[in-house]
């Protein structure tokens, strides 16, 4: 008996024209996919759009909360100008009016970014605005490491079609686009960037500090130094950290766990429980940093930094939003996706309706190991 290859079911196939046969990916097992195939595997437009909204809401809040600090750059002593990144070529700080316009416009751009309004222009504008503001913050003698991931995620989203759904200004009759690689790669690239960020930090510790870093002395001295510096310079420090550095024994395990979380970040790309476990571990790592050194990484602690690892379109609130986006496909009957016997859409039809039949077929396909999935798909 000749076995018939099972067609690959793309997680989250959206409404609109049925996928052409040529677009159907041959059956493959997860382990045999190349990194590029994995990166460009199809994903629903809603996932990317929800990532835009989550990151955009956070970034907009950041531009509002930091507005006084951004405006205060106009009062900085010019002699302290130590530009980094895209501002490195500037020998002096940007002119005050430029700083005021940038700081004032950023929150407004952020609102439009979240709304997805005229996204092709607003997306890059907002990403560049946040890049400039974050770089400006770090150009006075201290590079902040709290906004790197946010900026990188915004830059990825800026060049991605992240407002094809869940966006204002779109005509209601526009059909929801089918799941596609162009919606998949930005989300997975955002996840890869998170992994690389932690991996680089872990590698730097071992490369610079060597294996001695794991004995905990370096970490203990840093916790002591960081809290001491805050106390000496009249700032608030962590009483927990100050208490803990009296004891040597907690620091070797903390140091080892830190490096395990950082170097083990790649497991998040495997999806499933490993991903979830790593995200929880990374979140706890930042809770530890806050507790020991009073250093806040809000992008990570709010969880937004890790959103790219998950199927955002499965969020309960997103489901309602997705359904409201679904419009009758304008296709003639011959081109419409096939229907089940009872009229329910089949799994190859619009996943956004997320029917029982679709879920059942996708589950069966997943069990057969032939679904194109990313880390967020498991």
């Amino acid at each position, binding site marked *: 008996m000749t076995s018939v290859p099972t067609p690959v079911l793309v997680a989250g196939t959206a409404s609109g024209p049925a996928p052409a046969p040529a677009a159907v990916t041959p059956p493959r097992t997860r382990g045999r996919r190349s990194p590029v195939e994995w990166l460009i595997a199809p994903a629903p437009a809603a996932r990317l759009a929800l990532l835009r909204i989550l990151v955009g809401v956070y970034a907009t809040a950041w531009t509002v909360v930091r507005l006084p600090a951004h405006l205060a750059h106009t009062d900085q002593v010019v002699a302290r100008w130590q530009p*980094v990144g895209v501002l*490195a070529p500037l020998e002096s700080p940007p002119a005050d009016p430029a700083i005021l316009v940038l700081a004032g416009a950023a929150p407004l751009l952020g609102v439009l970014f979240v709304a997805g309004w005229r996204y092709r222009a607003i997306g890059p504008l907002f990403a560049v605005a946040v890049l400039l503001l974050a770089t400006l913050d770090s150009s006075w003698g201290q590079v902040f490491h709290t*906004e790197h991931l946010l900026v990188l995620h915004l*830059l990825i989203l800026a060049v991605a079609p992240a407002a094809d759904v869940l966006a204002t200004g779109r005509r209601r009759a526009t059909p929801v686009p089918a799941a596609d690689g162009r919606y998949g790669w930005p989300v997975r690239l955002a996840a890869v960037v998170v992994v690389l960020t932690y991996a680089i930090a872990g*590698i730097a510790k071992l490369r610079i*500090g060597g294996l001695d*870093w794991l004995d905990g002395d370096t970490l203990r001295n840093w916790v002591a130094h960081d809290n001491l510096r805050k106390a000496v310079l009249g*700032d608030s420090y962590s009483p927990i950290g100050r208490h803990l550095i*009296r004891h040597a024994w907690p620091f070797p395990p903390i140091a080892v766990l830190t490096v395990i979380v950082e170097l083990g970040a790649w497991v998040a790309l495997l999806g499933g429980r490993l991903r979830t476990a790593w995200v929880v571990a990374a979140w706890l790592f930042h809770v530890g940093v806050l507790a020991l050194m009073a250093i806040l990484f809000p992008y990570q602690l709010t969880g937004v930094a890790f959103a790219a690892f998950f199927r955002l379109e499965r969020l309960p609130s997103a489901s309602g939003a997705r359904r409201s986006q679904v419009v009758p496909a304008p296709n003639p009957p011959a081109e419409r996706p096939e229907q089940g016997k009872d009229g329910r859409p089949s799994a190859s039809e619009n996943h956004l309706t997320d029917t029982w039949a679709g879920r059942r077929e996708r589950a069966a396909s997943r069990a057969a190991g032939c679904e194109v999935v990313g880390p967020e798909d498991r």
Partner: protein
Amino acid sequence: MVGVALPGVRMMASSDAPDGLPLSTYPMFAHDRGRVVEQPTVVAVLPDGDIERLSPETIAATDQVIQAAKAVRRALDAGPAATRLLCEEVAGRVDAPAIVAVVVERHDGVAWSARDRGPLERRTVVACEARR
């Protein structure tokens, strides 16, 4: 992708790679600072001799402690004239009868945490009178 990522990661993690934004080597906490550290700062010496710590806002018109620390260190590195300028700048923000002093303190971090918050040593580089 792997061919691009691996050399990139290697370069970013090298000890002499620059720290920046949005790309960083994340070098923080990698170097061992040692248990005893020198910390420059600016303090106010009150008429009764008590030392009052000044905030980053007062020292360098910033809410960031490391930027304030860098501002003091840069002034010290730039020489006596720059240090005096910093002292007078800070004195202009202190609204109390006090002597403002740019100092370099040596601290044992672990000892500081255990009992004594005072420095092992405090060296005054420049002092100036606060305006009221």
